[in-house]
C-alpha cells in the first residue's frame, strides 16, 4: 500500500509519471486502466447505490422512519439478523472443526471433502433453496426423521437458519484453514513439554492464534446471511411477522409498487451492510497486524 492516508482518488487523467505517484515507473497505461476502471466502478456500483440514498433522503425523516422501521419491517430485520447470527455462530463451531479436520487429519476422501466445502460458492442459491426444502420438509429425507420428534424445520424460522448454515459454512472454513495450516507446531510442543494437556493447549495456545481468522469468517458468514435471499425464500414459509426475511419484504413491497417502502427498508439494510463491512475491515487489519508480529 501507499503508506499514505487514504484520500479521495485523484483525477483519472493525471499522468502516471509525476513524482506525486511515488516512484517513477516506465510501465505505461495508468491513465487508461485507472480512469477506465474508476469510471466503470462509478457507473455500475457507486452511482446506482447513491441513487437509493438520495431516494431515501427524498422521503423525509419521519416518513422514512415510519416505513423503514414499521412493525412488520422490524420483525423482518429481527429474523434476518437473528437467523444470520445463529447460523454464523453454529458455522463458527463446525467450520473450525472442519478446517481442523482438513488441515490436521489424514483420512480417505480428504481432498474430496475439501472441494465439497466450496459447494455453496458454486451452487446457485435457488437450487440450494429448493433442495434444502425438499430435504427438511416434513416428508423429506431429514424432515421425516425429525417430524416424529415434533421438530419442524422447513417453513419455520429454523428453516432460515438451515439455509444460512449452507450459505455461510465455506466462509468460516476458508478463513480459518490457511491460518491453521501456517500455525507452527513448535508452540504446541512447548506447551505440551511444559505439561499442558491437549485441551489446555488448544484453549490457551491454538485458539488465541486463530481467533482473528475465526472472527473474520464468522463476520463474513453473518454479513452474507443477513442479505441472503435465494436459498431462504423457499424454506422459510414467508409468513409476515414470523418467517419473512427483510430482503423478501423488499421484493413484496416492489411487487405492490410500494417503491418508498422498498427504498426505506433497502436503505436500512445497506447502512447495516456498510457498518458490517467496516467492522470486517477492522478485524482483518487486526488479523494482519497479529500475523505480522507473530
Amino acid at each position, binding site marked *: *500500500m*501507499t503508506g*499514505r492516508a487514504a484520500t479521495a*482518488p485523484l483525477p483519472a487523467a493525471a499522468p502516471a509519471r509525476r513524482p506525486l*505517484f*511515488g516512484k517513477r*515507473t*516506465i*510501465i*505505461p*497505461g*495508468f491513465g487508461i486502466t*485507472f480512469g477506465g*476502471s474508476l469510471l466503470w*466502478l462509478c457507473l*455500475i*456500483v457507486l*452511482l*446506482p*447505490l447513491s*441513487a437509493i440514498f438520495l*431516494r431515501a433522503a427524498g422521503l423525509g425523516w419521519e416518513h422514512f422512519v415510519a416505513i423503514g422501521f414499521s412493525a412488520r419491517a422490524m420483525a423482518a430485520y429481527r429474523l434476518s439478523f437473528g437467523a444470520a447470527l445463529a447460523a454464523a455462530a453454529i458455522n463458527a463451531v463446525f467450520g473450525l472443526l*472442519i478446517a481442523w*479436520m482438513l488441515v490436521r*487429519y489424514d*483420512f480417505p476422501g480428504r*481432498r474430496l471433502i475439501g472441494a465439497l466445502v*466450496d*459447494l*455453496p*460458492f458454486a*451452487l*446457485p*442459491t435457488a*437450487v440450494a433453496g*429448493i*433442495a434444502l426444502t*425438499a*430435504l427438511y420438509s416434513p416428508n423429506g429425507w431429514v424432515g421425516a426423521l425429525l417430524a416424529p420428534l415434533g421438530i419442524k424445520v422447513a417453513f419455520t424460522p429454523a428453516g432460515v437458519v438451515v439455509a444460512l448454515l*449452507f450459505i455461510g459454512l465455506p466462509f468460516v472454513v476458508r*478463513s480459518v484453514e490457511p491460518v491453521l495450516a501456517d500455525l507452527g*507446531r513448535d508452540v*504446541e*510442543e512447548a506447551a505440551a513439554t511444559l505439561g499442558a494437556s*491437549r485441551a489446555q*493447549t488448544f484453549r490457551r495456545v491454538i485458539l488465541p492464534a486463530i481467533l482473528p481468522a475465526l472472527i473474520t469468517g464468522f463476520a*463474513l458468514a453473518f454479513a452474507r446471511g443477513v442479505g441472503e*435471499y435465494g436459498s431462504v425464500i*423457499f424454506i422459510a414459509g414467508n409468513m409476515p411477522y414470523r418467517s419473512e426475511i427483510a*430482503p423478501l419484504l*423488499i*421484493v413484496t413491497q*416492489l411487487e405492490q409498487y410500494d417503491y418508498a417502502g*422498498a*427504498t426505506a427498508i*433497502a436503505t436500512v439494510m*445497506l447502512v447495516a*451492510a*456498510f457498518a458490517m*463491512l467496516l467492522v470486517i475491515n477492522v478485524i482483518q487489519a487486526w488479523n494482519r497486524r497479529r500475523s505480522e508480529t507473530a
Partner: protein
Amino acid sequence: MTNSPLTESRGARWALLTVGIVFLALFLLLPLVAVFAEALGQGLGTYLDAIAEPDALAAIRLTLLVAAISVPLNVVFGIAAAWSITKFDFPGKSLVISLIDLPFSVSPVVAGLIYVLLFGAQGWWGEWLAAHDVQIIFAVPGIVLATIFVTFPFVARELIPLMAEQGRDDEEAALSLGASGWQTFRRVTLPNIRWGLLYGVLLCNARAMGEFGAVSVVSGHIRGKTNTMPLHVEILYNEYNFAAAFAVASLLALLALVTLVLKSVLEWRYDYQGKGNGH
C-alpha cells in the same frame, strides 16, 4: 499413546471426524444428492421433457447470453483495475480496493432494486427511457446490469493480490528491452496471471449463471423472454411442478460440480490457491 499431548487421542479424533462429516453430509452433500434424486424421481422421460421444453430452452439460452456478456466485461474491468492498482503507486489505493469489494456486502435484492430505482417506470430516467422506447427493467439489459453488479469483484479480487505479489520487475525488464506496453502485457503479464485469471473467471461465471435475487427483481419473470434458469426453477417450483423444477436445477447443479472440479484441478495442479474467503 492415549493422551499424547501433541495429538488428540484416537477416540477424540474419531469423534471429531464423525461430527464434521455428519455436519457436511446433512448440510452440503445431501442437498446436492437430493437435487438429482428429485430430478430423476419421475423417470428419465419426464426429466428430458422438462429440459427440452421451449421455455426451459429459452431460459438456458438467456442464462448463457447473460454470462457471455457480463463475464468478459468483468474480465476487462478486473485486469484494468488490477493493472492500475498493482503496477502504480497512488494515494487512496486501499479505498479503491474497498469500493471494488462493495457489491459483495450488498444484498442481491438491493442490487436489483437500485437499477429499478434508476431505470424502472417509476425511476429517475424511467420517463425518458419510455419516451425513447428503451426498455431496461423487465428486459435483458436490466438482467445483464444486475448480473454485472453482483459479479463485479470476482476477477479483480483474484488478480490484485496475485499481481501485487508478482511485483513489477518482469514488466519493467520487458519494457526496457524495447517491448511495447501491449506486448509486455500479452507476453509477460498475461502468462504470469493466467491461472489466477482463470480461477476468477470460473467463480465469476458460476455466480453469473446462478444469480437469483438481483435478477429476480429486475427480470419481471416473463416466461420464454426474461426468465433465466434460476428464475425458471422458481416458477416451476411455485407451480408445484417439482420434477421439472429439479430437472432444470440439476443442470445448474452440474454446472456447480464442473466449477468445483475445475477449481480443484487449478488448485492442485498449478498450486494456485485462491485467496481463501473467495465469496
